[in-house]
Structure formats: structure tokens, C-alpha cells
């Protein structure tokens, strides 16, 4: 009965998810950054209308969601390596998961929640 809690570490599924999300971040993330960088400097109207486009919203959502999955797997590995007491590690794992799920929900709300529809 020793340390079976770390069992998910060996999962090749997560290993693969980490790589796939990394590639998505490299391609989509770099594309997004280059897109905004090339448009810089922009004012509120341009910034706001960019986020009215479904394509931009989907791309941003894809990047943030991939980032959260990527961070979840990565941070879990970090916790597993540096936080030895099981109770504390479990607690931090729960906090990590909660934070990242909230980040995805928050992003969805920002992008589709009707925030700033008035464009004023």
C-alpha cells in the first residue's frame, strides 16, 4: 500500500496529450501572437471587433483550453516531483484542477458572454 496515488504518472495517454497540446500551442498560439503583433498598434474598436469574429474566438478558446490541459499535466508532474506529503500534494492537485477548469470557463464567458457587445 505504498504511494499508489502517483499511479497516473505512467499514463501514456497524458504523455501524448501533453505533446499534442504542445503542438497546438506552438502552431495556433504562434499564429495568434503573430496576428495581433502584426496588427499592433490597435485601438479599442479594432481590438473589440477582432473578438466579434467567430474564427478569432474559436482560435483563442482553442489556445487557452490547450494551455490549461498542458499546464495541468505539467504542473501535476512538478507537484509529484517536489511535494512529497501526499495530503498536501492532493490538496494542491485539487486547487490546480479547479483553477484551470475555472480558467476555461472564464475564457468561454469572456469570449461568448456578451461582454462589451455595445462597443462603447
Amino acid at each position, binding site marked *: 500500500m505504498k504511494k499508489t496515488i502517483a499511479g497516473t504518472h505512467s499514463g501514456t495517454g497524458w504523455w501524448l496529450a501533453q*505533446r499534442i497540446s*504542445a*503542438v497546438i*500551442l*506552438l502552431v495556433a498560439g*504562434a499564429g495568434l501572437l503573430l496576428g495581433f503583433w502584426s496588427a499592433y498598434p490597435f*485601438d*479599442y474598436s479594432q*481590438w*473589440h471587433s477582432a*473578438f466579434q469574429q467567430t474564427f478569432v474566438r474559436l482560435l483563442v478558446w482553442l489556445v*487557452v483550453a490547450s*494551455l*490549461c490541459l498542458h*499546464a495541468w499535466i*505539467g*504542473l501535476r508532474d*512538478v507537484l509529484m516531483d517536489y511535494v512529497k506529503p501526499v495530503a498536501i500534494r492532493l490538496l494542491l492537485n485539487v486547487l490546480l484542477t479547479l*483553477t484551470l477548469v475555472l*480558467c476555461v470557463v*472564464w*475564457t468561454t464567458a*469572456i469570449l461568448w458572454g456578451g*461582454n*462589451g457587445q*455595445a462597443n*462603447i
Partner: protein
Amino acid sequence: MSILHRISGVFLFLALPLGLYLLERSLSHRAGFEEISAMINSPAGRLLLLVTVASLALHAFAGIRHLALDVHWGVARNSARLSAIWVLAAALLVLLLAGWKLFL
């Protein structure tokens, strides 16, 4: 190399909620956008942006190297060492360019 990958990764994770806050506020209304612009343009904002850009570059370059090693590309000791140096050099270059753009 891998410790830098981890430190930059943890930092980027911490920066994510802040980034989402900036996105939400900047999209909420014109005043919010101006407020966020001023915040990013302040000396502290620029410094934080510089650290974030450098972390992102380091993490991305180290990640590309990691992916290459995964498919057994450049795993020989010498080439692995050389690519590690290239990763650090490229990240340093991004840091210097961003610092130059942001502060000079």
C-alpha cells in the same frame, strides 16, 4: 535545461489568470481598454511583459527541442548538448530584442 523549462512553465501558469483578467477588462469597454493599455505601458507592466515574453520563448524553444528528442532526433550526447545551447541562445536573443523594444 529541464529545470528552466519547469520554472518558465510554472511562471506561465501563474501568468495565465492575469492574462485572462487583462483580456476581459480590455474587451469590456473603451475605458477598460485604455486602463489596461496604461497598465501594460507602465514600467512595472513592461517588466512583467518582458519576463513573460522571455519565459514563453524559453519554454517554447525548450519544448520544441523536447519534441525533437521524443522522436529520437538529435539524441546523441553532443547534438543534445549543442541544441540545449541553441535553445538558451535563442531565448536570450528574444529577451534582448524584447528588452530593446520595450525599454529603449
